[in-house]
C-alpha cells in the first residue's frame, strides 16, 4: 500500500492571539483506508478537512495528496485538483435543488467530460448500489434526509475520486438511515477501494472506519486502530477511549 495523504506539521491560525484551529498536526493516510476523525466541537475537525480538500489554506505545514503539494496550487489548479481527485459529502447534503437526482449525480461526470453513455451507465450502477434507483427522476425536495445523503454519496463517488471526504455525513440522519449510509460507505471502501476520510462526533459512525484519529484543541491526541476486531468490539473500544 502506498501513502495517499501525508500531512506534516499542518497549522492553521484563524486569528492571532486566539486558539489555534490546528496545531502542528501530522499524519499519513494509506490508499484504500477508511479513516475516521473524532473530537469535541471546536477541536479543529472541519478545519482539517477544509484544508485537506483545498477549500482553505494552512498557515504553515506541508500536505501531499497523491504526490501533489497542495500548498503550491493556485485557485484554478486547486479547482481542477478537486475536480479530478476529490469527492465530498457534507452534513447539509449540498444537493443542487433545481437538478433531479440523476442530474445531480451527473454533474461531476460532465465536469470530467465523460461520454453520455458512460455517464448514464455509471449513474444506473451507483443508483442501484445506493438504493436510489427509483428516485432518479425525483428532485431533492421530494427525498428524505437519508435518501438525500445517499444521493450526495453517489455523486461524490461517481467520478471515482482518489479520496472521499465526509464531514458529519450522518449528522442529520436517524439511526436507521445513518447505518444504511455507513454500510454503503464501507462497501464502497472495501469493494471499490475508495479511500475515505470521515469526520464525526459519533462513536457508532466512527466504528465503521478502520482507523480513528482523536482530536482535541487542534491536536491529534490519540490514534485507534481496528485491526481484526469486529465493528462492535471496535465500537466498545472507542466508547471507552472517549469516556476517559
Amino acid at each position, binding site marked *: 500500500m502506498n501513502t495517499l495523504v501525508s500531512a506534516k506539521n499542518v497549522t492553521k491560525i484563524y486569528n492571532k492571539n486566539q486558539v489555534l484551529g490546528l496545531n502542528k498536526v501530522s499524519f499519513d493516510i494509506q490508499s484504500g483506508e477508511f479513516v475516521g476523525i473524532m473530537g469535541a466541537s471546536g477541536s479543529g475537525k472541519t478545519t482539517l478537512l477544509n484544508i485537506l480538500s483545498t477549500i482553505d489554506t494552512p498557515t504553515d505545514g506541508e500536505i501531499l495528496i497523491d504526490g501533489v503539494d497542495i500548498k503550491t496550487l493556485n485557485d484554478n489548479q486547486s479547482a481542477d485538483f478537486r475536480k479530478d481527485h476529490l469527492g465530498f459529502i457534507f452534513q447539509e447534503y449540498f444537493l443542487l435543488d433545481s437538478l433531479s437526482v440523476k442530474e445531480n449525480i451527473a*454533474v*461531476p461526470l460532465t465536469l470530467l467530460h465523460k461520454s453520455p453513455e458512460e*455517464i448514464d451507465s455509471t449513474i444506473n450502477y451507483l443508483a442501484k448500489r445506493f438504493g436510489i434507483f427509483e428516485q432518479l427522476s425525483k428532485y431533492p425536495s421530494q427525498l428524505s434526509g437519508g435518501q438525500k445523503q445517499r444521493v450526495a454519496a453517489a455523486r461524490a463517488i461517481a467520478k471515482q475520486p482518489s479520496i472521499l471526504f465526509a464531514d458529519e455525513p450522518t449528522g442529520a440522519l436517524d439511526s436507521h438511515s445513518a447505518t444504511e449510509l455507513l454500510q454503503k460507505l464501507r462497501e464502497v471502501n472495501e469493494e471499490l477501494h475508495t479511500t475515505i476520510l470521515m469526520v464525526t462526533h459519533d462513536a457508532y459512525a466512527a466504528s465503521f472506519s478502520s482507523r480513528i484519529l482523536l482530536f482535541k484543541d487542534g491536536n491529534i491526541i490519540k490514534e485507534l486502530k481496528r485491526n481484526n476486531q469486529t465493528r462492535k468490539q471496535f465500537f466498545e473500544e472507542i466508547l471507552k477511549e472517549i469516556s476517559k
Partner: protein
Amino acid sequence: MVGLLTIAKKNLKNNFSFYSFYFVSVAFVLTVFFSFISFSMNSIVLEKISSDGRVETMSRVVVMFVMAFVLFYMSYSNTFFMKKRTKELGIYSLLGYRKSTMVKLLTLENILICFAALIVGIILGAVAHKGIVGAIVKLLKLQIETSEIPFININAVVFTFIFIFAILAVLLLSNWIILRKSSLLMLVRLDKKEEKQIKINTAFSFIGLLLILFGYFLALDMTRGTQSLWKTIGFSPIALVTMISVVLGTIFFIHSFLPFAIQKLKMRKSWFYNESNIIIIPNFIFKIRSMAKTLILLTLLVSGTLALLGSTVLTLYHPVVATERIIPSAIEFPVEDKQLATEAIKIAEGTAGKENVKHKKTTIIYITSPSNNLPQEYSIKEEPGFDLISESDYKELIRNQGKNVEFENLSENESILVKYRPDKKKLDKGNIYTLNLTPTNSVDIKVKDTTLLNPIGFANSVGTLIISDKLYKEVKSFGLPEKTIISINGTNMRESKEVYENLAPLFKNNNYFSSSYQKVDFLIQQNSSTFLLISFVTIIFFIATGSILYFQNLSNAMSKKDEFTILQRMGYNKKKVKKIISKEVFAIFSIPYVLGLAHSIFAVITYKTALMDDLLGKNSAFILPILFAVIVFTLVYIIYYLLTKQACNKIIFNSK
C-alpha cells in the same frame, strides 16, 4: 432597543452595493422626471415651439405617462426589496419588534434614499433641462434669451416633492398591508419559497407559438394593400385581433413553449451532459414559471420601446429622404413672369457664384387621353391628364440633379411613364395610350418603361410622360396648354440656406415655388418637439426594462449563491462558474430581446404600410432608421447586461 435611525443607517451601509443601484436608478428616474416636469412647465420655450397647442397636449400626456411610470418603478423596486428582506424582518420580529416599528423602519429607509435621490435628481434634472433647452434653441434657431429661463424651476421642485411624498405614502401603505398579512413564520421563510416542479402543457405551448405566428401573419397581411383584411374587414378590429393574438401568444409562449422546448433540448444528451448546460438548463426550467410574469412584462416593454423608437425615427427620417423625390431640384418654380424668373436666376448666381449654378427651363405640355387603361397618376391631379416632357429636357434635368438616366433613346411612339408611388411589378409597362392632339386628331403611344426618377417636383407635375424630341416638337405645334418651369441645381445647392432666403421674398405667395432646403428645415421644425417627447418616453422605457432585468437577475443570483459554493467545492473553477453565471444572465436577457425585437419589427412594418406614404421604393429608407433604433436599443441593452453580469458575479464571489 436600538434606535430605528441607527438600524436604518446600518442597514443602508451594510447593503451598500445593493442599495447603491437602487439609489442610482431612483436618482436617474427622478432626473428624467424633474427635467421633464421643468420642460413641461417652461412656458417660454413651449410658446415658441408650439403654435397650435399640439406640443402642450402631448407633453401633458407624456407627464401622465412619466408619473405613472415613476409610481410603477418605485413600487416595483420597493416590493423587490421587501421580498429580499423578509428574513431580516422576520428576525426583528422574533426579537420582539412590532410590525408598526418595522413599517417605520422601512419608511425611514425609503425616505432617506428618496430624499437623497431627489436632491441628486433635481440638480441633474435641472442640468439636463438646461441642456435640452439649449439643444432645442440651437436646432430650431429660436429667438430666446436662455438666461431668462431659471436654472431651477421652483414650481417644478414643489410639484416633484409633492409627487414623491405621495408615492412614499403609497409605499408605506403597501408595506403595511404586506406586513400585516404575513405571519411570523411566513416572514422567516418567505424568501426561500419552494418552487414547484412545473407541468408543461404541450397544447398551450403550441397555442402560444401559433398565436404569435398568427399575429405576425395579420401584421404582414397589411402589405397586401387593398385586398388585405385590414381594408376588407376594417382597421380597428384587425388591429385589436393582432394585438391580442400577439400578447396572448407571448404569454403562452413564455409560460409553456419555452420550458417545453428546453425540456426537448434536454433529450439531446451529448449537448445536455456538459459542465455548464447541466446546471443552466435545469435551473432555467426550475425558475421559468416564477420568472414568467417578469419575462412577459419585459418582452412587452422591449417591443413597446423598440416599436416606439423605430416608428419615431422612421417618421422623422423618411420624409426627409423623400424630399429627394418631392422636390428633385434644389429650387423650382413655374415661370409666370419672365422678368421675375430672370431676376431669380441672377440672385441665385449672385449668391452661390455663377459657376456653381445650373438652371434649366423646361416646358411641359398638358394632354388628355380617352384610353381606359390609364395609370393612377393620370387622375391624381386637379384636371386629369398627362404632362409631356421631351426626352432631351428630361435627360438634362436629371443630369443637373446629379443622377443617372435609366433608359436608352426613345423612338417616336415610345414613352416612359414617371410613377408617383413605386410599383415593383411595373403594371403600366407595355400599355398603349391614346393622346388627344385635337378633338379629332390623336396619336398612340406605348409605355416602354416606368421610372421613379421624376424630373420635376410633384407640386408642379404629376403623371409625367417622357416622349421623344421628335414627337414632342409635333405635339407642341398643336398649341395645347403648357407650363414652363425653372429648375435650379448645382453644387451644394440643396442645402443652401442663403440661396433660399434670398429667393424666397420674390415668391412670397407662390405655392408652386419649392425649395428642398426649406422643406427639410420645415420637417425638422415640425417634428423635433414630437421627437423630444418620444425620446423621454423611450428613455423611461429603457430604464424600466434595464432595471427590471437587473433586479430579476440579482434576485436569482442571491437565491443561488449557495449552489455556486457547492459547485466550486465540486471542482468548478472561477472561470467556469462565471461562464455559468453569464450564460444564465444572458438567457434571461435574450428572451425578451429576441421576442421583443421580432414583435416590434412586425409592428413597425404594419405602421409603415398603414400610415406612411412610401414614395421611395427603396428598402434602405426603411431599414436604415429601424436599424438605427435597433442599434441604439441594443447598445443600451448590452450595457445593462454587462452591469448586471458584474453585479451577479459580485454577489456570488463576495463572501460575506
